[in-house]
C-alpha cells in the first residue's frame, strides 16, 4: 500500500504561542529570544518587517524600536508541543515527534476507518490542532517524509499542500536543492558543483550517477524519497511499540468443552491483534497459554512465517498446536495469548506490506472491524470462532468488570494536566 505521510509545522511556533497566551500581543510584531540576545522566533508581523531568525536583538531594536521582545518560555512551548503530538495521536498512533514545533504522522490506510479521503483526514487534524491550540499550522502531505516536508513549507502560513506522486516533479522544480530536508550547506555545495541546483535535478539522476559520484547513503535516501519512494521511517516514541502484547482471561465456571476453550483463546487473539493494530505492531511469534482448574499451565510458542496482526492468520497457525495441547476431560479455567517479537509496520519490508490484493483487502476489513468496535464497544464485530466465548455470561460478571476497570486506570500513565494560564477575565 502506498504510504501517506503528513508533516505538521507550527507557523512561527514560539511567537504564535506568545500571542495565543497574551491577547495583547496579537496582530503585533513580536520577537522571542530576549535572553539569548538574538531572535529565536518572529511573529508573522515581525517577519513582514524584514526581521529574521538569529538576528541580533540590538539590531532589531534599532530597526524597530516599538517591537515587543520577550524571553523564550520553553515551559509553555513544550506544553503546546505535547498538545500538538497528543492531538495528532488521536487520529493515528504513528506519530514522530520530530521537533518542538513539528511532527510527522502516517495515515496510510485510514481512509477506510474514517470514510474520508486522505485530504479530508489531513484537514480534519489540521482544524483540530488550530481550534485547540489557537495557532496555525502548515501541513504537507505526500508519499514520504521528504515530500511531506516540502508540502508543509510550501504555502505559509496556515497552508495545506498535498503532493500526489504525479505532482512531485512540478513541485521539485521550484525547490532549491539546499532547502530539501537533510541537505546541509556542505552537500548543497557538493551538488551544485555537479550542476545540481534544484531538487528536481537531483531526483532525475539515476543510480549509476549516484554510484559514480559516491553519494552517501543518507543522500541516496533523500534521492529515493524525492522520486516518490518511501524509505525514511517514522521514529516513534519508544513506548509506542511494546515488547509484547499479552491478553489472558479467566472464565468461570471452568470448562472441559474444547470448542468453548478454543473460543476463549480466539477471543484473546482478537483482542491482542486489535491492540497490535492500534499501535501498528506485527508479531513474529505467538505464545499460547492454557491453565487448568488445578493451576497446571501449558505454554507453547509458535513462530509466524510472516509478521502479522491478523487474527485469522494467527488462529490458523495455532489450531494444530491447540489440538496438541488440549487434554480431554480436565477442566480449564483460563487461556492466554502473547504476541511477541513485535515489529513496527513501518519497519516491514515493502514487498510484505500489501504484497497481494488479498492482503490489502484484509487490512481494509480489519480496519473496518476496529472502527466498528471502537464506535460501538469491543466485540461488536468478532470472528465466528470467538462466538462461544463472547456469548458466555459469567455468573460473577459484575465483579470481573470492576477489576477490569481498575486495570484500565492503572494502565493510564500520566495523570497531571498542564493548563496554560491566559490571564484575567471580567
Amino acid at each position, binding site marked *: 500500500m502506498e504510504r501517506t505521510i503528513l508533516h505538521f509545522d507550527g507557523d512561527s511556533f514560539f511567537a504564535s504561542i*506568545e500571542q495565543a*497566551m*497574551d*491577547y*495583547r500581543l496579537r496582530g503585533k510584531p513580536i520577537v522571542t529570544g530576549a535572553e539569548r540576545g538574538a531572535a529565536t522566533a518572529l511573529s508573522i508581523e515581525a517577519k513582514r518587517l524584514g526581521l529574521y531568525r538569529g538576528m541580533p536583538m540590538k539590531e532589531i531594536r534599532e530597526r524597530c524600536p516599538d517591537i515587543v521582545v*520577550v524571553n523564550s*518560555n*520553553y*515551559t*509553555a512551548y513544550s*506544553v503546546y508541543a505535547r*498538545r500538538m503530538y*497528543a*492531538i495528532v495521536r488521536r487520529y493515528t498512533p504513528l506519530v514522530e515527534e520530530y521537533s518542538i514545533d513539528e511532527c510527522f504522522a502516517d495515515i496510510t490506510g485510514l481512509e477506510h476507518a474514517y470514510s474520508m479521503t486522505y485530504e479530508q483526514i489531513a484537514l480534519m487534524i489540521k482544524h*483540530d490542532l*488550530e*481550534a*485547540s*491550540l*489557537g495557532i496555525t499550522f502548515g501541513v504537507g502531505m505526500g508519499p514520504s517524509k521528504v515530500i511531506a516536508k516540502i508540502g508543509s513549507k510550501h504555502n505559509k502560513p496556515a497552508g495545506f499542500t498535498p503532493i500526489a506522486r504525479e505532482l512531485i516533479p512540478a513541485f521539485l522544480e521550484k525547490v532549491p536543492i539546499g532547502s530539501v530536508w537533510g541537505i546541509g550547506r556542505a552537500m548543497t555545495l557538493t551538488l551544485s558543483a555537479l550542476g545540481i541546483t534544484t531538487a528536481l535535478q537531483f531526483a532525475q539522476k539515476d543510480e549509476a550517477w549516484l554510484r559514480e559520484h559516491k553519494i552517501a547513503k543518507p543522500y541516496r535516501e533523500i534521492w529515493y524519497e524525492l522520486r516518490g519512494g518511501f524509505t525514511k521511517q517514522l521514529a516513534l516514541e519508544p513506548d509506542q511499540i511494546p515488547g509484547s502484547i499479552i491478553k489472558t482471561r479467566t472464565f468461570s465456571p471452568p470448562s472441559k468443552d474444547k470448542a468453548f476453550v478454543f473460543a476463549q483463546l480466539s477471543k484473546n487473539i482478537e483482542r491482542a491483534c486489535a491492540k497490535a493494530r492500534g499501535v501498528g505492531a506485527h508479531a513474529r511469534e505467538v505464545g499460547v497459554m492454557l491453565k487448568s482448574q488445578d493451576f497446571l499451565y501449558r505454554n507453547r510458542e509458535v513462530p509466524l512465517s510472516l509478521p502479522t496482526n491478523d487474527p485469522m492468520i494467527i488462529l490458523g497457525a495455532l489450531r494444530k498446536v491447540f489440538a496438541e495441547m488440549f487434554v480431554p476431560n480436565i477442566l480449564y479455567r483460563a487461556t492466554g495469548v502473547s504476541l511477541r517479537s513485535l515489529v513496527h509496520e513501518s519497519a516491514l519490508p515493502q514487498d510484505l506490506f500489501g504484497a497481494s490484493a488479498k492482503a490489502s483487502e484484509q487490512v481494509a476489513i480489519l480496519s473496518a472491524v476496529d472502527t466498528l468496535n471502537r464506535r460501538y464497544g469491543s466485540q461488536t464485530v468478532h470472528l465466528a470462532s470467538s462466538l462461544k466465548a463472547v456469548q458466555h455470561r459469567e455468573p460473577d460478571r459484575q465483579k470481573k468488570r*470492576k*477489576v477490569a*476497570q*481498575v486495570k484500565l*486506570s*492503572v494502565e*493510564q500513565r500520566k*495523570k*497531571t*494536566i*498542564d*493548563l*496554560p*494560564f*491566559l*490571564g*484575567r*477575565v*471580567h
Partner: protein
Amino acid sequence: MVHGKAASSRKPHTLRKLGHVQAGFASPADEELADTITVGEYLIRNKNASYLLEVEGDSMQGAGILSGDLVIFERGKEPKVGDIVIALLEDGYTIKYLRKKQGKLYLEAANPTYPNLYPKQGEIVGVVVATFRSYT
C-alpha cells in the same frame, strides 16, 4: 505586565499562578483506591484544548462564579445558546452567558447591574467547562 508567563520549575501537584496549573493527581496505584476520582479528569473533558483564566469582578456571581475563581474553558468547542462562554473583546477577555433574542446573539452577565453586551468586534474563543475555588 505580561500575562501567561509560565514558571520554569515543574514540581508536580503545585498550583502555579500566572503559569501552568498542575490540575491532576497521581493515579490510584492499587485496588483499594479505585473509587477515588481524578480531579483534573473530572473537571476537564478535552485536556489538549483547555485553558485557565482567573475571574475578576462580580459579573457572573448569579451563576456562582466569583471574583478570584479560576475557570477552565475549552477552545474550539461549538458554543450553544445558554452556555457560559469566554469572549475576547477589545478590552480583554469577558465571561458571560451566550444568549439569543430575535435571532441576534448577545452576552449577558449573571448580575442585573451589568448591561447586556452586543459586541461589534471580537470573538468567542471558548466555552467554560469548569470552575474552581480554593479557600486556603
